[in-house]
């Protein structure tokens, strides 16, 4: 449409105005998009519980960590969680001491984390969606690539993420002393239960 206005003398004046408008719009929309990606695509866990269970010959062992922190990016699917090993609470406090002192060496390796991606879900879908998480799980100073099945459920602006997977102690160089080997299973079942809200 601008072709009509094309005359060598006024071409410059005419061209400047739309360019400025175009540039400003582009910039504003870009800012808007960036701002949006932080406000509505990022989710922060308001409840994040990681627990584990091991079923052994002599006694079952279970512990729960309710002080986990987590962020989930609903657009990219990226997810991360972080926790202190010491925050695992056992029904039996002596077990808790042994867990920290002998198996997890939590003075040396105080934290455990996961960083990865959740694939196979949509923010607009209703009901439970079966998803897959894959990424790097760090326990006892050892990082391994893992894949875990899970579910995501959207409730209003809340997101519930659940997953269950098995961790083999030897994979993470967690050694169970021979003398108590009957007491502790060589693998534990980890349960993840997060409720996210928009950041």
């Amino acid at each position: 449409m601008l072709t009509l206005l094309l005359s060598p003398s006024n071409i410059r004046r005419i061209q400047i105005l739309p360019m400025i408008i175009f540039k400003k719009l582009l910039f504003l929309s870009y800012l808007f998009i960036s701002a949006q990606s932080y406000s509505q695509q990022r989710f922060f866990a308001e409840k994040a519980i990681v627990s584990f269970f091991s079923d052994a010959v002599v006694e079952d062992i279970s512990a729960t960590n309710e002080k986990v922190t987590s962020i989930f990016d609903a657009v990219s699917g990226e997810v991360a969680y972080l926790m202190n090993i010491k925050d695992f609470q056992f029904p039996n406090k002596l077990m808790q001491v042994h867990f920290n002192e002998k198996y997890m060496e939590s003075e040396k390796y105080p934290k455990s984390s996961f960083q990865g991606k959740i694939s196979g879900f949509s923010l607009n879908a209703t009901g439970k969606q079966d998803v897959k998480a894959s990424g790097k799980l760090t326990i006892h100073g050892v990082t391994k690539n893992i894949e875990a099945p899970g579910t995501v459920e959207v409730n209003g602006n809340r997101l519930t993420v659940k997953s269950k997977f098995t961790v083999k102690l030897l994979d993470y160089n967690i050694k169970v002393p021979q003398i108590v080997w009957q007491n502790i299973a060589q693998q534990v079942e980890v349960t993840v239960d997060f409720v996210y809200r928009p950041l």
Partner: protein
Amino acid sequence: MILFIDPYNLKCMRRVILLLLITPLAAFAQDDLLGELEKGTKPEVEYTFATFKGTRLGNGHTVETKNAGALEFIFQHRFGPVSGGAYELFGLDQADVRLGLDYGITDNLSVSISRNSVDKTMDGYFKYKALRQSSGAKTFPVTITALAGMAYKLSPKDFEEGSGLENVDRLSYTGQLLIARKFSTNFSFQLMPTFIHKNMVEFNEVNDQFALGVGGRTKLSKSVALTFEYYHNFNLPDNDDTEALLEDPSFYLRYNSLTFGIDIETGGHVFQLLLTNAIGLTERAFITETRDDFFAGDIHLGFNVTRTFQLKKSK
């Protein structure tokens, strides 16, 4: 759009394009979610735990107390002196026993009752962990536990008539501070200033006695540790004076107690194997009434075995 291209607009365009190119890069740098979580963590108070494996170092206490709702049964044995030779099977033919129960009222306060065959003593104490070693948001260098105990001698069965001795003479009291620092995962050290009052004493003793204990442990593996414990009693009677006064002074001789041991911990059990010159297992007995000389070879083999039962589940 083609028409916008002139030198000035080209410059504008370049800026926009550059902006467009840079912004996602900046956003990408912030995208490391784990990094963000790590930045968000506030420093917390990190309390030191497991300074020692058990509530006992050797004969005496460590700073450790039982957790709330945990009951510990402790079974302690001290055999005869190794110097008894093959005839006494190096001491194994005789043994003194202490059976005790420790219960955690809270995570920091324990109460105990026990019976020791030496002098047929009943004893009880309260043990309170007052301050804990910590790092992080709040730093404190040591763990301090206070112990207040009382012991009652049932032996002899009856005081002789006319001796002027009463029931109260069977009592003794202990006040003790246990101050420990876990220097590293493998090494812990403890100081034990102790005050003991005995209502009745032998002619060569004083009623109030002060002692300073030192002890420590070094871990050999996750489940095995070497321990040592020494109590220096500042009010010990002079054995030379006693010997000069008496023909057979063996009952009246007094030595400081020294103990070396190995801790083996297996889940709910702690086994402690010891070599010590003391046989009594209440503070009165091993701090003020040790009659054997470690360096003369009057060493006793002994063990402490504990089993912890969690009576109440903690939340």
